């Protein structure tokens, strides 16, 4: 267990959007952290708040949403309290984010070189020639072949995987301490996925970058991440080392998720296990556990209906769960 200080620490973050009957919490009291050289995977269904958490951390929530409370600590500074200008200086410098769709993430009317240079010069006074050299170096670092020629190509002349690498190059241009990758591989084929993830691994090892990988693919989590945080309805419901969580999940939702992954060696004709129902719409769960309605363990139980479980250590200090019955969950209920 690492005792290094967190590179990024989010404490009790709450982001709200106005709703018909009052503000809706899209990010509901989220606490997370990632250390230098560590890869934290954040998993959850669509709408679980996983992207919004980090967009909020970077101050990229578009109106009418806003961060209501909480802290986001990077390098000793609380991003929530910073002015727009200060935030802008930090983005891309100390903390960067890459998004899901590489096809629309690059500006179609500028060359790749111009866009990388744009990021370089946003935070550092760099001469044009030097910026160009640095851009070539960055492209080489993300393994784009023939970099000095491709610098002058336009985004539509690159494939999806290469565009994602260009975006990654832009994100690491200033060697940030934290890199947030929001489903970087969802829009790519499996082979390209592997390359992008390998790149992230390299960054983590060689540069000691703290990486947050937002994904819904448990396979990727198992293969690449050190720690995993499971989110549901805007809250973190479980967090721990990947090996611990996968071996013995301490939250029924995690357990159900893992169980629902089809197994290659399952008997022929075995049923696919799905979690019945839908995640609650933001703001519709007032009290109690948000997962209660769909929980095989807690559905209908008064404790789960009325009492909201807090994220607390369930099996050792580094494995947290937000479930009243965390400690009683048994491995046999996991993957059969």
């Amino acid at each position, binding site marked *: 267990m690492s005792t290094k200080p967190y590179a990024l620490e989010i404490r009790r973050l709450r982001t709200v959007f106005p709703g018909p009957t009052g503000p809706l919490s899209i990010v509901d009291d989220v606490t997370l952290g990632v250390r230098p050289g560590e890869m934290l995977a954040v998993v959850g269904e669509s709408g679980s708040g996983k992207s919004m958490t980090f967009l909020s951390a970077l101050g990229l929530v578009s109106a009418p949403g806003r961060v209501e409370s909480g802290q986001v600590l990077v390098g000793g500074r609380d991003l929530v309290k910073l002015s727009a200008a200060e935030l802008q200086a930090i983005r891309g410098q100390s903390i*960067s984010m890459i998004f899901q*769709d590489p096809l629309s993430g690059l500006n179609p009317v500028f060359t790749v070189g111009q866009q990388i240079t744009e*990021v370089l010069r*946003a935070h550092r006074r760099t001469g044009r020639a030097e910026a160009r050299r640095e851009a070539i170096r960055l492209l080489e670092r993300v393994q784009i072949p023939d970099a000095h020629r491709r610098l002058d190509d336009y985004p539509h002349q690159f494939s999806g995987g290469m565009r994602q690498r260009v975006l990654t190059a832009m994100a690491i241009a200033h060697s940030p301490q934290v890199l947030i990758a929001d489903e970087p591989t969802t829009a790519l084929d499996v082979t390209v996925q592997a390359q992008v993830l390998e790149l992230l691994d390299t960054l983590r090892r060689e540069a000691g970058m703290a990486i947050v990988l937002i994904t819904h693919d448990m396979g990727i989590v198992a293969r690449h991440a050190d720690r995993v945080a499971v989110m549901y309805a805007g809250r973190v419901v479980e967090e721990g080392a990947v090996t611990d969580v996968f071996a013995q999940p301490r939250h029924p939702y995690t357990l159900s998720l893992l169980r629902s992954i089809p197994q290659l060696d399952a008997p022929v004709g075995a049923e696919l296990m799905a979690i019945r129902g839908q995640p609650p719409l933001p703001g519709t769960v007032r009290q109690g556990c948000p997962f209660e309605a769909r929980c095989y363990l807690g559905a209908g139980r008064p404790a789960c209906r009325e009492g909201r479980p807090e994220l607390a250590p369930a099996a050792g200090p580094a494995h947290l769960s937000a479930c009243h019955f965390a400690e009683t969950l048994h491995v046999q209920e996991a993957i059969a």
Partner: protein
Amino acid sequence: MSRHLARSLAQLLLTLAGVVTVAFFLMRAIPGDPALYMLGDYATADAVAVLRAKLGLDLPILQQYLLFMQHALTGDLGTSVVTGQPAMTEIASSVPWSLALAVSGMGIAIAIGVPLGIVSASRHGSWIDRAVMVGALLGISFPVFWIGLVAILGLAHKAGLFPTLGASSEPGLWTSLHHLALPAIVLGLSVAAYIARLTRSAMLEVLGQDFIRVARAMGVSEHRILYRLALRNALVPILAVISVTFAWSLGNAILIEVVFSRPGLGSTIMKAVLARDYQLVQAGLLVLAGAVVFVNTTFNILYGVIDPRLRTR
């Protein structure tokens, strides 16, 4: 790039051919005998027959069409029945007036409309945005000739800032400009309203794109995002707005010219319509439509220059 250019030029020729065709058939859609109309009170059977022969109206329609095309290529657009002069002469003398009005009007419209649209989009939801949009709404809702009348009433008659007519026979650059000013301002403000609204839409759409969000996440300043990254993308739609509103303004210039008693292509067409001088009407329409086609083609070529995606196809 050259492929785009070639394609644009080919389209230009094709469209021009179509324009000539439509203009031709439009005027042939007049019910009744044009020769009869033109001669009016002097229409005796013989006179009509002579005129018909002279105008080539007794030839089969296809032949008339081909002849017309042929003449159009050489710049002969027929003869005005009122003055007996070639239609081209009439038109040629009114073009400078229209050109002055169109250029100054569009200039004002672009200078006011585009920046307002951009500012509005960048401050989406603020009071500036709302004020601009309210103003633009009023601008597109009041008939342009009414605005002209009110302007003449208020600024020319009552305030005496401008002459009440849109043109003067006195020589001198300053006089001409002074007389041009009010019509140009009225036209300009009217078109600016459209341009502001559409520019704002175009900018808002670009600002909502992913790559803007990415730039923001990379720490690029808002100023640069707006004026360099977003604007370059909105440039093609904004130019498209300008080209479309230009065509619109040519159509409405006729109203301005009438209200301000100003000579120009619109006035010429108007007089021709009232005098049943269909050759002149036809010629005027053709020239105006031709101008629109030329401007559109120029813009089309420009799009190819600006948007790299159009080049490497």
